[in-house]
């Protein structure tokens, strides 16, 4: 088993609109892969298909060698959704505890996991507060902590750093790198281009296809530009020209 996520030729059609048209994606242990692309490109759909929460019209997904959808494999995936799905009436700690229990973490292990996850996202002092007293950034951080609660083999993070200040973003990336060191894999969707630079590999999804893929460095060379942002823009322009020429 050398691939953590193995998605081949994914096709997804929502009521006559093709959202994904043959996207493939691989993730190996100890790798951080970034999914970039404009809003509505199908990044979140792809993530949900990988999680087994959404059906595909064509193509298959295997996570950790198991064909998705599979309930048991979900224990090994840490998932952070695009919207903060938290229980407003519960405290930060209660949210962490609840999702930890659902993931099968119990007893003193759970207490340790809660303490660690809260530490990474700098929420230790605010764990007792109810979520309706949290700021947007705090909610985002708690969602990330929940994704890490069961010490998963693979993290799937859908725009994890929206609303998080630069200092804390550094801290979170430090944690992601440390997870990578431990041989864990991270799939991350983002709009923030300096974050894309930090990924090992990038996949640029646009209009339902993988427009470009490779390490940030290789992509920059390929398109002969200086930043990932320019790669994004140039690749997009080229795609539009091609489709209008056709």
């Amino acid at each position, binding site marked *: 088993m050398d691939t953590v996520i193995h998605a081949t030729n994914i096709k997804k059609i929502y009521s006559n609109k093709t959202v994904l048209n043959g996207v493939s994606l691989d993730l190996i242990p100890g790798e951080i892969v970034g999914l970039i692309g404009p809003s509505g490109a199908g990044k979140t759909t792809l993530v949900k298909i990988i999680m087994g*929460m959404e059906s595909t019209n064509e193509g298959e997904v295997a996570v950790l060698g198991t064909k998705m*959808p599979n309930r048991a494999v*979900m224990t090994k*995936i840490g998932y952070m*959704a695009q919207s903060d799905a938290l229980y407003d009436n*519960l405290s930060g700690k209660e949210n962490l505890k609840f999702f930890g229990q659902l993931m099968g973490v119990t007893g003193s292990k759970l207490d340790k996991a809660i303490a660690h996850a809260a530490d990474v996202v700098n929420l230790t002092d605010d764990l007792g507060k109810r979520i309706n007293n949290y700021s947007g950034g705090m909610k985002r951080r708690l969602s990330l902590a929940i994704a890490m609660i069961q010490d998963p083999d693979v993290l799937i993070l859908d725009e994890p750093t929206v609303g998080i200040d630069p200092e804390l973003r550094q801290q979170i990336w430090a944690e992601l790198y440390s997870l990578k060191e431990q041989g864990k894999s991270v799939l991350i969707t983002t709009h923030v281009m300096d974050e894309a630079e930090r990924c090992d590999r990038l996949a640029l999804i646009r209009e339902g296809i993988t427009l470009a893929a490779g390490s940030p460095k290789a992509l920059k060379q390929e398109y002969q530009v200086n930043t990932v942002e320019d790669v994004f823009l140039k690749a997009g322009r080229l795609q539009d020209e091609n489709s209008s020429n056709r």
Partner: protein
Amino acid sequence: MRILAIVKRIITEMFRDKRTLALMFLAPLLILSLMYFLFNSNSTTNATLGVSNVDSSLVKAVDNKHIKIHHYGKNINAKHVIRRDNIAGVIKQSGNKLTITYQNSEPSKSTIIKQSLQQGTIKLKFAALKAATTKQAAALKQQQAILQKLVKASPQLASQMPTSKSKTSQQAPKNYTTSSHYLYGTSKSNFFIQFLPILLGFFVFLFVFLISGISLLHERTTGTLSRLLATPIRRSEIIIGYLTGYGIFAVLQTLLLVWFAFNVFQVKIVGNFWLLVLINLCLALVALSMGIFISTFANSEFQMIQFIPIVIIPQILFSGLVPLSGMATWLQWLAHIFPLYYGATSLTNVATKGADLASITPNLLILIAFIIGFTILNIVGMKRYRRV
């Protein structure tokens, strides 16, 4: 384990949400109190009373414009006659003992009989007393005349002579002793207790339906439901967790309402208290699974409220508040598609007629079928959010 986590979460959330808690526990008490004061006055004006072997003088005394007398033979079975002829009560006499059996399905009729009998016996006593006093007066006069004669004849004797006891009250009024029996309910029955069991079922149904439906809807719209499904939890574990968590509140609500009715309004029920709780639990679970099911057709809390006129109101109409026996046949059949009909009928039978578990089992089974049906629909329906 995961179910337990969900149950715990629901309980914690519920206790944090004071307003919902108040809606579930205080609002029914308020409505119940209003109903109590509203319905506690009696209004029925006529009752049919059967008499068997009762002194004709008493029958005549009891009779008034509110009572219709029905004469029966000597050896009748009161309960049997009441059921057969649907009369409000029967009085049987043996010696001085009156045995009154009330049907009591409409407590105000029992009250009419009770009052008439009371007035009747008082009337009889008065009449007898009057007769006695007249006789006594006559006897006294006689005695005095004799006495005077005697005194005249021999004055010494007079002081020694004991006053002769008058034998005047041979015709003393019969002192009737009465004992009362109730076919349904007890002496404490009234309109309120007729409606109480139906209300118990209805409150539990309404509030559990709303709260569970809205809370699942909330999970759906805030994304926590799909977040839940991103964990290895089974779809059935979510549904069962919901049923258990809100089921606990439904039982608490029932206990509080029944306690309140018992202790504040002094209502007495005939049947087993725990049977009421059991029926209400079944009703609550139907409401829960129905609420969760219906919530999938709503996109906001407001849309969930819009289901009340469609889903809840018809059920009230057919729950027994309006007597079913007076309805057209097809309407009576229509009642059978509503879960509340089965729940309310069972609750009424237990509370006012003392039905036992065996006799309400068919209704309970139908409620359980509703629960299972909706639960399966819910579990399957949740596939929309996760394919396994």
